[in-house]
Structure formats: C-alpha cells, structure tokens
C-alpha cells in the first residue's frame, strides 16, 4: 500500500473526468437496480394478487404466469448483458484514463 501515499485521491475525486464517470455510473447503476427489483417483485405480487391474469392460457397449456416467470430469466440475463456492455465499452475506458494519469492528477504530494 506504499503506493497510496503517492496518489492525491481528493484531486482525482475532483477531476472532471472522474466526476463524469461517477455521474454516468451512478445514474445507470441505480436506474438498472431499481428496474430489476421492480420487475422481480412483480412476480410474487402478480402470483398473489393477479391470479386471474396469470391463469390466462396463451400457448396450449402455457399461461401468462409461466411466461412471466420465464421472462424474469430473460430480463435478468438482458440486464446483465446490457450492464457489462456499457461497462466494457464506456466505464472501463473512462477508468483506464484515470488509472493511467493517477499519479499525475493533482501533482505528487
């Protein structure tokens, strides 16, 4: 951890590039988090309070409830894919720039 002393963390925190990364990431992550939680809890709520809807048959014996439960898997995978796509292409590049300049930002103490 000898390296930590050579980096001015406050200066990086105040760096506009970090601020931008932080702003984008925060909005993206918590938005996605809230969406996935809402989507998940719709399942037990639907199963308990909207049984008539869940019982509607749409494809042979396959009903809305079954399709909705299956969609939970698809949505979870889609969220994971979308997050990693954004992180791989956008956030990693922004972080890489900060890592490269870490010891320069704010000048050495």
């Amino acid at each position: 951890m000898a390296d930590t002393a050579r980096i001015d963390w406050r200066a990086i925190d105040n760096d506009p590039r970090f601020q931008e990364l932080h702003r984008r990431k925060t909005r993206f992550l918590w938005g996605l988090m809230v969406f996935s939680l809402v989507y998940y809890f719709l399942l037990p709520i639907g199963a308990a309070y909207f049984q008539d809807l869940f019982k509607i048959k749409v494809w042979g014996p396959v009903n809305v409830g079954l399709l909705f439960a299956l969609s939970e898997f698809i949505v979870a995978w889609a969220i994971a894919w979308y997050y990693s796509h954004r992180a791989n292409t956008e956030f990693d590049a922004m972080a890489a720039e900060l890592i490269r300049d870490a010891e320069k930002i704010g000048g050495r103490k």
Partner: protein
Amino acid sequence: MTRNRLVFFAVVAALAAVATPALAQGAVAPKWQWLTFAVFGVIIGITMYVTFLAAKRVKSAADFYTAGGGVSGLQNGWAIAGDYLSAASFLGIAGLISLYGYDGFMYSVGWLVAYITVLLVIAEPCRNIGKYTLADILAYRNNPKATRIVGAISVITVSTFYLTAQMVGGGVLVKTLIGIDYEISVIVVGILMLGYVLFGGMVATTWVQIIKAILLVTASILLVFFVWLPYGFSLPAFLRDVVGDPKVQAQVATLLGDPAKNLSAAELGQRFLEPGLYFKAPIDQISLGMALVFGTAGLPHILMRFFTVPTAQEARKSVIWAMAIIGGFYVLTIFLGMGAAIKVGPTQIRAVDAGGNMAGPLLAQYVGGGADSMLGNLFLAFVAAVAFATIVAVVAGLVLAAASAMAHDLYVGVIRQEHVSPEEQVRAARIATVVVGAIAITIGILAKGQNVAHLVALAFAVASSANFPCVLLTLFWRRCNTGGIVLGMIVGTLSAISLVLVSPNMTYPSVVRPAQEKIVATQAASIAKLNGDLATAADDAAKAKIKAGIEAAEKAKAVAEGRLKDLGDAKTSIVGLEKPWFELRNPGLISIPLGFLAVIIGSLLYRDKRAEDMWDELYVRQNTGILAAKAAAH
C-alpha cells in the same frame, strides 16, 4: 508426493471400510451401491489430484484465501455456480416443482435475480478495494479493529448457520439417497472437505466447485434431453402431457382438498401450472424475495469468490458466467421437476422423501431404464455422487470463509495488529480451518434429527440485514462510518435472529401436537378400515394393493408418533412462546430496513475523522480500480 499419495489412498480405504458396514436401504438399491461409490470415487480421485497440484502452489496467505488472485472470470463463474447450487437448491427446487408445479419454479427466480445485485453494486467495488474477507472492505475506511470484530462475528454467524444446514441436510440426504449412516456421512464429508481446504486452500476449493458444477450441469442437460426428446422439444406439447397426467391431477386434488371436488380432471391438471399450491402467504413470499436478492450479496463465501480474480473486469465476467449457468440450470429444473412428476409421480417421490428432494435422482433412474436396469442405476448413482460432491464443495467454501474471518480478521488483524510473518499467516489459516471443520462435524452430529430448513433462511436473513447494508453503505455513502457499521451489524444480526426465534419456523407444541394427534387417529382409522377390506378382498392383486396401503398408513402413523414423542411434555417453543409472535417465516421485510436504519443512525451519531478522510480514496478506488491490478500482480 509419493508419501502424500499413500496417505491419501490410506484415508480413502479407511473411509470406505468405515462406510461399508453402515449401509442400509436408500434410494439406490443395495445391489447397485457399488456403482455410486465407483462414480463418487472417480470424482474424488479427480478432485484430489487437482488438490495435489494445487497444494504445491499454496505458499502465502493470498494463495490460501484467494488462490493468489489467479482465477479467471470463466473459472470463477463456474466456481460461483458450484458454490451456490447447493443440494438444497439443486435437489430441493426440482422437488418443489415436482410436487407443487408453478410455485416451485417461481421460487427459483429469486435465486438468480440475486446476482443482479451482486453484479451491479457489489462484485467490482469489492474486487477493487478488498483483499481476502468481507471485513477487509469494512475496515478500509472505518476503525479497523472495531469493524473487523463485528464483521468477523457476522461472517462466522452466517457461515455457521449455513454450514449446519448443509451438514445436517447433507447427512439426511446421503442417508435417503445411498443409505449411508448419518454420522458416517457427516464425518466423511467433514474429512474430505478438510482435505481439500487444508492442503489446497482456495485453489483446490475452486476446482472442486468447478468440477462439481460441470458434472451437475452435464447431468441435468442429459436428463432434460431424454425427458424432452419424445415431445420434439416443444414446450406446449410437454406441458400438455403434464396437465393431462392422472398422477399430477391426483396430486393437485390432494393439495387443494375440498375445493378440488368442483374441478374437472383437465382443470386440476392446469392448476399445476398456476400459482398458489405452495405459497399461501404473499407477504412472506415478498419477504423471502428480499432476503434472497439482498442476502446473496452479503454471503461471505460468495463475496470471497470475487477476491480470487485479478481485476474488476474478471469479477464482472465471472458474475455474467455465473448468471448464465445458474439461470440456465433453474430453467432446466422445470423439465426435471415436471418430468419427475409425470414419469415418477408425486406420490412415489414423497414416499422416498417428503420434501421432494428425490425427484431428480428418481427421474434419472427412470430415464436410464428404471429401478431394475443397469443404466437406470448408473444414472441414479451418478446423480447421487454429484449430490455428495455438492455438499463437500459447498461446505469447503463456507469453511474457508469462516476460517478467513477467524484467522485473517480476528487473529492477524485484531489480536496481532497485522504484525505477523507470511508463514505464520498461512499457519493461522490452516489452524482456523481445522477448528472450523471440527466445529462443523461436531454440530452436524449433535444436530441430528433437528429441523434445519429454517437455518438457510436465517443465514440469508442475517446476510441481507447486517452484511449487505454495511458493505453497501460503506462503499456508496460518504457519511457512513465506524459507528454505523458497528450498530448496523449488531441490529441487523440481532433483529434477524430474534424475529426468526419468535416466528412460525420454530416448533410450537400446542400447534403441532393436535395436528400430529389427528394424523395418528386418521391413519389408525384407515388401517382398521383397510384391514376390514383385506378380509373381503376379491383376489391376490387387490390384497397386495391393500397391504401396500396399510404399510404406507403405518409408516405415516409411525412418523407422527415419532414427532409426538420428540415433543414430550413441552408446552412452549424454545423461547417460551405458545404461538408465533411474529407471523412471517422470513424476517427480511422488517429486519433489512432495520439494518439500513441502524447503519444510518449510527453513522450520524458518531464522528469518525478517518472514515471521512479515507472516503475519497475508497470511492475513487472502488470506481476505477486504481492500484487494484497492480496489487494483484504482486
């Protein structure tokens, strides 16, 4: 090496010698038990070989706890799946689906969604600032001594609950499956696990989990292939057979009771694909969902897996792989569970194990050609061996997590204040492993016959109410500090545990006794009636059927009588209540908000200069990974 190998074979031979005379009747017929042992022996052989290779690489504490950070994202994804798909989830969920249809499948969803929380807010930040344990994250900007103590206590608490559930559940499972005595299987699991962890540390544990996950997924894919093939891989065609099956319809009729009388056979069958056969209390369902989606991110043995990869990118990749494997597996369980319901039948499944745990293994036997065929028994033996390997793999991960809290946090961090040589750190880790392993075996044997199902719920409750709020807020909330962490850990843990202690999970003699007495009375009446029928039965076939009925009724009566005997004269639950004081089985709905509230209040009431000063460093590092890659390269 040669000496090690000799020791290894001696241990295996000794275990085999101990296990052989203890064999009784399980799902695997005695005639075929050698097959299970052969398959299991091969699995042990492969994993032990990996452990030998790994043992040479374990030189430092980093090697022991985190495989030196040298695990790839793909490997870690499989290992997470292997760690997470415990016997309870891989046999239990297929069982629930086979008995209750839709609700069983719905139950599995939360176990996957949990990984979204892990992916979005936990995995990468923890990789970026953590080292070996959960408490490392808490100690980063808070008072190291105080937060290590509360963090370690919480980790040990959660791991012990989970460990006990695994040991006891595993022991029962192995007995039902293979017929090995309970104590023997607990000891064998314990010793095998110690062998992996002691010699191979995290490298061996990782590989045991990977190999087990691959076997589990392969077995499931094969089974589903054979079950689904006759339907041309069409979902509606398969489900049409499910809802049209008389066994399934009979099961739904039994579950519904009186209201079923107004339903036609087709309606009964369709009801199997609709919610409400298992979960009766929606609020409890939501509470359980909360414990799952927030608790998984606070499970120490899952968290620890993210320290084994070199970078945040690899941590991300490992969650993606884990989600693909775990989710794919749960989708397959629809076919495993429903397939077992039509091929084997709910009655048959319940006859071997009331919880439905044998649905998967029995389906394997059916697919292979049935109880009398070589192939059927080979399939069953394979699934049984995978189940055994599962318990070993999950227990190994848990013991490693508990041992790291004990050795790294409490001994090295608190007692010795970090003044410990690298050699001594590894020694401390190994000693802690033996201690935890011995405790696990002892608890496993002492807790024989106890109902441990609620312990997994309890582990998730504590993880979601104490660990998760503390980790999340120290990573993302500037004002969070030592006061908040200490208060949050205490309030989260205590509220989760005390709410479970006064919940319907406990045994309430005044509720259980009349119910069991009623079972005894009804079964006695039905035995008397069947005996009457027996005298007037027309032919031998009818007689045999009645005799089987009598046998089943006597078995059910004996179980109920056993329960009554266990109750003794007790009038109240362990904490002295006549009936549950808190109606939810899962405390998450109350205890998770309480945990968050405690961290917030504790932080606001306490002033901690270090936590404020270190915030910039922690926040920049958790977001960017500055220094993390370098640290891993050392």
